[in-house]
């Protein structure tokens, strides 16, 4: 079973049409060329993969209780959501 980090990176890489190796923890979504539609599609894919609900509103991303500023922060947010659910 791959780690949460590997699985999230795989989802983001697919969205960005990149190899997982090209997605680093410090990458931002902008760096990866993921636009607003790509972001909501990634969040959907993450929710489906981990069966969690990500509190994200595209109207006010900065107010959402979910930090999307980098791949690292996204992974941290997902790990927290999974832990809270367990």
């Amino acid at each position: 079973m791959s780690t949460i980090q590997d699985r999230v990176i795989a989802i983001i890489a697919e969205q960005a049409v990149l190899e997982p190796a090209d997605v680093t923890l410090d990458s931002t979504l902008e760096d990866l060329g993921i636009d607003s539609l790509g972001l909501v599609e990634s969040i959907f894919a993450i929710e489906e993969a981990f069966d969690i609900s990500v509190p994200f509103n595209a109207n006010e991303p900065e107010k959402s209780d979910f930090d999307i500023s980098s791949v690292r922060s996204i992974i941290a947010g997902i790990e927290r959501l999974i832990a809270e659910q367990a």
Partner: protein
Amino acid sequence: MKRVVITGAGTINALGHDVPSTLESMREGRCGIGDLEFKDVERLSIRIGGQVKGYDPVARFNRQQLALYDRFTQFTLISAREAIRQAGLEFTGELAARAGAILGNSGGGMTTLDENYRSVYEEGKNRVHPFVVPKLMNNAAASHLSMEFNLKGPTFTVSTACASSNHAMAQAFQMVHGGITPVMVTGGSESMLCFGGVKAWEGLRVMSRDACRPFSANRNGMVQGEGAAIFVFEELEHAKKRGACILAEVLGFAMTSDAADIVMPSKQGASRAIEGALRDARVNRDEVGYINAHGTGTAANDKTECAAVADVFGHHADKLMITSTKSMHAHLIGATGAVELLACIMALRDGIIAPTIGYEEPDPECALDVVPNEAREAQVEVALSNAFAFGGLNAVLALRRFA
């Protein structure tokens, strides 16, 4: 006023995945209606349709595109690529700023709606893909068309059930005719062949279980199809200047409303639209050699339409040919007028009249020359295309052979 010609055509429908194969099927009188193939079809009592078969979306679009393109958008883009390639136009600068796209569509992304309803209601899921709305909205096809080809002028979708495409093409014609833009991309697209889409139509009890036999005494209803056809409407001088190949001239149109009944057709509404189109096109009735009928194959439509044609044309009604190509490609609802315009172009340009197939028994209430079962060669100067929609909304286009 500017003269308007057609300089490009594209299609995908049950008869073919492009214009040449579709016209060949029409010439051969081939039937594109067959067994429907989709999930839960065994729960339907109507199991035939004019479905686009042998089509692989992955061969035409990438993953990101498919996440956003419902089947009706895919059909639109495939048809538009063929039409715009044939026209040989590139939309840049001033032309891009003025040219737009007006499309007919009735059901929007019915397959997308069906799949997602299934997932939340039947499978009990509480999450749907984020692109459900941009995928199913009726204007999605027109918008993606504008994005792919850089069309920045008037762009919208017309939804008048079975007359959607004719209303859309009439509106596009008017914009070029009136000098608003030298080029418009127009036509229509539809894809309602999914469980929910056909189930809804079943409820009306107007669908045939075995075949679409317009004008035949033993006709027993309509058969639903899917697909698209897209055209490039261009101002004549603009087309001539660049040496474009001209398929036919669009002369005019008329639109009427029955203001009477939500489903039953009206002879007066239909005849007013036909008369209006002749007047707008400034043609004498005896110049009309071919009518592509609305010809749904229902008891009510076909006799009403024939009565309207007889009223408008008098003795000439016995000399003109009127066929329903729905017998082959089925009823594409919001796209039907667009696919049927191809039969008008074939009549005018190639001198071949697409037949009404499935014709088995003469009906005294449809006693016109319906070119039964086999195509016919005939030189036609003027052709009309009828569309009479649910809701009593009628739109008739008039075209002339371009020589």
